[in-house]
């Protein structure tokens, strides 16, 4: 058994955590010494206290945001993959439609969110649509790239053996596209969350179905800065967890064979 600090896994977790603790300590102590008022910039302990105090309402808001995020993420994955499959079917389809996918990507969601919110009556649905639009592009571009990046030697082998189009897709193109697809998932999961929060800001919905963005807006109105930070903290935490989940998923699927997920054997 190796000493703990020599183990790769331990260091990978412990080092960033240690940095975090040091930063929080400096923040806490520095702000205490300078006695910065809580309504200007709260200390970590203030934020933590607010997190506990506003727990139920923040948690409800988190669930709302999370729901929009996950719905949008799933929609983006399904739609993006379908579009990518369509693109690789023929060059003509890709050439004629790809510019519009780019158009969708470069248009800021804040700019089109009001329109979508006006057009779509159901707020949940309009938020999901906004977030989907943001999360869609990485899935399309990465999956298309992956489906196209077929090993030429293997493609030759499939052709020589007169493999059907379907067999080539299932046995060659899809497995080969997986590493690219998972790369897209990582980016897209974060974008879905960003899209959801941005759309919530624009919609500004109050009441029972309000998300974390509304909590931040509301905290701003009432100058409850620690609650603002607490909501921000939850958004960040969600983003990190989503990303970690995608990393774990891609590791689980690819660890056996792909270079990006395999460790050098010693």
């Amino acid at each position, binding site marked *: 058994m190796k000493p703990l600090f020599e183990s790769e896994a331990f260091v990978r977790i412990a080092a960033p955590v240690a940095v975090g603790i040091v930063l929080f300590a400096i923040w806490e102590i520095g702000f205490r010494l300078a006695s910065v008022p809580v309504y200007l910039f709260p200390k970590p302990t203030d934020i933590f206290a607010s997190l506990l105090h506003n727990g139920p309402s923040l948690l409800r808001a988190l669930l709302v945001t999370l729901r929009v995020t996950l719905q949008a993420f799933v929609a983006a994955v399904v739609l993006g993959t379908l579009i990518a499959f369509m693109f690789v079917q023929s060059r003509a389809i890709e050439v004629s439609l790809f510019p519009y996918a780019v158009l969708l990507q470069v248009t800021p969601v804040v700019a089109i969110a009001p329109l979508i919110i006006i057009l779509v009556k159901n707020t949940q649905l309009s938020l999901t649509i906004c977030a989907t639009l943001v999360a869609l592009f990485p899935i399309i571009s990465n999956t298309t790239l992956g489906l196209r990046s077929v090993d030429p030697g293997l493609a030759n082998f499939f052709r*020589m053996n007169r*493999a059907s189009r379907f067999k080539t897709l299932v046995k060659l193109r899809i497995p080969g596209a997986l590493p690219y697809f998972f790369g897209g998932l990582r980016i897209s999961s974060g974008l879905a969350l960003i899209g959801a929060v941005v759309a919530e800001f624009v919609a500004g919905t109050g009441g029972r179905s309000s998300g974390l963005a509304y909590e931040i807006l509301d905290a701003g109105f009432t100058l409850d800065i620690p609650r603002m930070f607490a909501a921000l903290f939850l958004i960040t935490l969600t983003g990190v967890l989503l990303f970690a989940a995608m990393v774990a998923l891609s590791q689980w699927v690819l660890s056996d064979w792909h270079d990006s997920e395999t460790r050098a054997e010693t």
Partner: protein
Amino acid sequence: MRVLLPAEPLDETAKQVTMVCDGPPAVEVLSAEKVFTNGARGLAPIDLSIADGEFLTLIGPSGCGKSTLLKLIANLIEPSDGRLLWWRGDFAQVGQEGRRLAFVFQEPTLMPWARVEANVRLPLEFGNMPRATADPKVADAIARVGLSRFNRHFPRQLSGGMKMRVSIARALVTNPNLLLMDEPFGALDEFTRNKLDDDLVNLSWERKLTTVFVTHSIYEAVFLSTRIIVMAANPGRIFRIMTIDQPQPRDQGFRDSPKFAAYCRELSTWLAEASLQSAGGGGS
């Protein structure tokens, strides 16, 4: 880059290339030529008959069209003029029982996401063979190349030589009659290459395979072949043909014999001449 040449007379040796062998030939190349779309003349009209059960090696300086000829035989490319026959018929009937063809590439071209057994099973899956029928064949092919212990491994866990063995097992699993190999051991060290050559000689003998093999190695060519086609470039053509008169299957004893050395010496001289002849045209 050289553009289309006027037809030039082939030299004397090239005219006598058609060899008459016993039994029906596996492949006949009938005045097949290849002019690439950029105008480069890859292959001058070639006549060649490959006998059933023969181990034929194509060797020559780079640009001599040996890979092109092999691809023509594999029907991976079409001749610009002339034609080819497989078992006295066209390519449509290749793939039937007794008329199967398998190709081993220069690279192992394995699916990195699939275990050894899944890689070897692939050609059978193209034919929708049920797992129960396929599995014994797969196990047998893997055993043939001596990798039974590694059938659950992924390609990245194997050495270069082992990957090449998997690639050969994948070719053997369909029980082919004609095996085409394009410099399969070119990237391997000499020791591994000799080992694989030993196995290949036994395999092709046991299975009565007709093999067409492309290589750069003189020793490999002499050790494996019943007949060696020496090719020259500009345009790609058959320069000379050497018959290796040594019973199959062969072993290390043949490599150590004076006869082997003599064949190698002669082949080496021929290759030097072929290179000289190839340089005349200007090259690529």
